[in-house]
C-alpha cells in the first residue's frame, strides 16, 4: 500500500494485503462445497482475481506458468475455452481466457502451446448472428449484449476485430438504446447499468462512441448514486458494489465521472471490505466474493484511490495491459 493511503483515517483505508491473501486463498478452498459448485466460473474467477491482484500491485501473487497451463487446459479444439477442464466452451470463459493471457503477456504461449489466436478468433466470430449483428454465448444460441461486448473485447485484444461484422453489431447496440439514454440486454429491454457498460464499451471499441446520447445517459447514470454513497443498477433498486464498476466505467467513458460524489462512493466501497479476512461484498456486512472484490477495486481505481494501479474503463484490465497491447 502506498504511503499516501496510510495517512487516511482507518475507516477509509484499503486493507490491500488482506485482499491479496483473500484472492490467493481462493484456490485452496477445496474442502468447501461452494468451491465445487462454482467450478463453472473457474476461469472467470481466475480473471477476476488476477485483475484485482494487478490493480493491487501484486501481479506476481499467482504463479504465471501455472496460470497459463490452467488457461490452456480449458481450451477446446474449436478454439473456444470452457470454464474449467471438462466444461463446454463458452463466450464468457473464452473472453476471460483472452483477458488473462493478455494481462500476463502470454499470447505467445497460446500460439505455441494452445490452438492459436486465429482459432480463438474464429470461435468467437462464428458466434455472431450475421443477420442481427449480435452474438450468442455458445452454440445453443442465447443472445445478449454481454456476449457482443465480450467478443469485441477479446477480438480487439487479439487484433482480430475484422473477423466480424462490426457495423452490424453496432446497429444492434443502437437498437438496444432506450429513451432514457441507457441500454438493455436486447432491443426492447429496460435500461440496466450492466448492459449500459457492455453497450457503451462495445461502441467505444468500435470507435462509435459518438452514437451514445452522453448527456442523457450521464444523467441516468449519475442518479444511480443513492443515500449512503453506493450505486444501484436501475431506478428504485438497492445499491451494490458491483455497480461501482458498471456505472462508473460508463460515466468515465462518457467523461462524466465528476457527476457523482467520489468521496461518498469510496467510503461505501471501503465499508464493504472484510477488514480481517480480505475481500469485498455487495453491501456492508455481507459475504465477500472475488467478483465484488474486483469491482470494488476497479471502482476505487477509477476514483483514483491512492495506491491502486489505473484500470482501463473499457476493457476492465490494467491500463498497463491495454497500453502494451493496443498502444493506447
Amino acid at each position, binding site marked *: 500500500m502506498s504511503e499516501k493511503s496510510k495517512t487516511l483515517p482507518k475507516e477509509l483505508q484499503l486493507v490491500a494485503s488482506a485482499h491479496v491473501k483473500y484472492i490467493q486463498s481462493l484456490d485452496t478452498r477445496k474442502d468447501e462445497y461452494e468451491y465445487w*459448485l462454482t467450478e463453472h466460473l473457474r476461469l472467470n474467477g481466475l*480473471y477476476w482475481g488476477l485483475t484485482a491482484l494487478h490493480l493491487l500491485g501484486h501481479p506476481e501473487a499467482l504463479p504465471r506458468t501455472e496460470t497459463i497451463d490452467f488457461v490452456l487446459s480449458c481450451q477446446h479444439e474449436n478454439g473456444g475455452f470452457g470454464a474449467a477442464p471438462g466444461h*463446454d466452451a463458452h463466450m464468457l470463459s473464452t473472453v476471460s481466457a483472452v483477458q488473462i493471457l493478455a494481462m500476463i503477456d502470454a499470447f505467445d504461449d497460446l500460439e505455441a502451446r494452445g490452438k492459436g489466436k486465429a482459432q480463438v478468433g474464429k470461435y468467437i466470430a462464428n458466434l455472431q448472428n450475421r443477420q442481427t449483428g449480435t452474438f450468442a454465448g455458445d452454440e445453443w444460441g442465447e443472445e445478449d449484449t454481454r456476449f457482443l461486448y465480450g467478443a469485441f473485447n477479446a477480438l480487439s485484444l487479439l487484433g482480430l476485430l475484422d473477423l466480424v461484422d462490426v457495423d452490424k453489431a453496432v446497429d444492434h447496440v443502437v437498437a438496444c438504446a432506450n429513451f432514457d439514454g441507457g441500454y438493455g440486454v436486447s432491443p426492447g429491454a429496460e435500461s440496466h447499468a450492466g448492459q449500459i457498460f457492455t453497450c457503451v464499451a462495445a461502441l467505444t471499441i468500435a470507435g462509435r462512441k459518438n452514437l451514445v446520447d452522453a448527456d442523457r445517459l450521464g444523467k441516468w447514470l449519475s*442518479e444511480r448514486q443513492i443515500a449512503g454513497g453506493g450505486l444501484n443498477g436501475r431506478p428504485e433498486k438497492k445499491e451494490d458494489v458491483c455497480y461501482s464498476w458498471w456505472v462508473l466505467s460508463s460515466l468515465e467513458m462518457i467523461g462524466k465521472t465528476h457527476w*457523482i460524489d467520489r468521496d461518498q462512493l469510496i467510503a461505501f466501497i471501503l465499508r464493504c471490505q472484510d477488514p480481517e479476512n480480505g475481500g469485498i461484498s455487495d453491501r456492508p456486512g455481507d459475504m465477500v466474493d472475488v467478483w465484488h472484490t474486483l469491482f470494488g477495486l476497479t471502482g476505487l481505481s477509477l476514483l483514483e484511490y491512492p495506491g491502486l494501479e489505473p484500470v482501463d474503463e473499457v476493457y476492465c484490465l490494467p491500463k498497463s495491459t491495454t497500453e502494451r497491447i493496443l498502444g493506447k
Partner: protein
Amino acid sequence: MADQGGSAHGIARTSRVRTEEQRKVELDKIAKYRELEDQVRSGVARGDTSPGLFQLTSKLLRLNPEYYTVWNVRRRLLTSGLLSKSSAASSPLTVSLTASPTATTTPPSAALSSSSLSATQPSPASPTAGRSGTTADSPAGEGKVSAADATPEAAAAAGQKKDFDVLKSELEFTIPLLLDSPKCYWIWSYRLWLLQQVIDRLSVSMARRVWQEELGLASKMLTRDRRNFHAWGYRRHVVAQLESPRLGGESMVEAEFEYTTRMIRMDLSNFSAWHSRSKLIPRLLDERGADDSTRKGFLDEELGLIREALNVGPEDQSLWYYHQFLILNLVNPVGHPTLTPAFSLEDRVTYVTREIQDIKELLEDYDDVKLIYEALLEYTLYLGQLQGRKLDGAEKDELAEWLQKLKKLDPMRNGRWTELERECGLVEMEAFET
C-alpha cells in the same frame, strides 16, 4: 467478465469457523457431488445416451443449476435420442432467441434463415459431444412407435406426441429450479431452447398451447419479483412468439399494455412496467389505427395518469422517467418514436408549458423533492430549444434558483449542477457583472 451467478448477493457475512463435525459433513457432501459429476462425465465420454445418464443430469442440475455444461449434455441427449429424429430442426441449431418488438412483422422465412448461423458453425463445440450415432432403438423410442404407426403420417403424429411429452416434462423439470434461482441465466436459456424445440417439432396448435402456458409462468415470476429483468425479457419473448405467424398468433399489444397498467397500479415504483409501457405505445397506436385526435386523446390520458402518480410519488424516479418519455415525444420527435406526429410546434409548446406549470404546482406541497427541480430545469431548457430561442431573464432567474435548490437538496451531484450552471450561462453572467 460480465454479470453472472456465483457471486454472493445479500448474504450476511459470518465467521466461517466449522467444527470438525461440520467439516466432515461438508467433505462428505463434496465427495458425493464429485462422484455424481464423475458419473455424468464418464457417461458422456462413453457416448452413453441412456435414460440413466439423463436422470443423473437431473440430479446434478438440482444440486447445481449453474452447471451449464450439464444443461448442454442434456440438450444433446434430447436431440440425439430422446426426441424424435423426424424433424427438420434436429440439426444442431442456433436460432435467434432474442426478443424483438418487430418480431410480428418478421416473415417466417427470416426467422428460419437466422439458423443459417448454424451452418457457419463447427458442429458441436465440445470435444465430449458430437455423438450422432443413436438410432430408433434409443431409450425414448421404446414401445412408443408401434406397428399401428406404420404410415408416415401416423408415425409423424406419434413422434410429435412423444416429443410433446418429453418437452413438457423437461419444461416441468426446470420450474422448481427457476423458482429457486430466478436469476440463473442458464435455466432461462435452457427453457428457451426447449421452447424453440416445441416450435420446431410440434404442430402449430400443440406448440401454441405450450407457449400459452409460458405466459402464465412469466406472470408468476413477475408476481414474485416485479423487477426481475430476466422475467420481463422472457415475457417479451414469449409474447413475441405467441404473436408470430409461426404459432398462428396475432397481436397481443392491447393485453400487454393492460398488463403494464395492472402492474403499475400494484406498485407505482415498478419502472420495468413503465418501461414496457413506453415500448408498447407506438405499436398500440399504430394497431389501433389511431388518427390525430385519438393520438392526442391518448397522450392526454397518459399525461393524466403520470400526473396523478407524481402527485402521490414525486420522489420516485420511475415516474419521472416515464414523464420524461412523454415529454421527449413532444420536444424531440426525431430519433424517438413519436406518438403525436401531427402536433404543430405550437401544440408542443402548449403541452410542455402546461406540464411545467403543473410541476411547479407540486412545489406547493413538496418543496424539498429534488426530482421536481430537475424536471423543471430540464423541461425549461427543452422549451427554449423547441422554440429555437434563448431563455429570457425571468427564466434564467428561475433556473438559477432551482440550481441553488438542487445544490442544497442533492449535493451528491454537485459536479453536475455546477456544470449545468456554466452551460446555462448563469456563472459567466455573474462574472461579467462583477
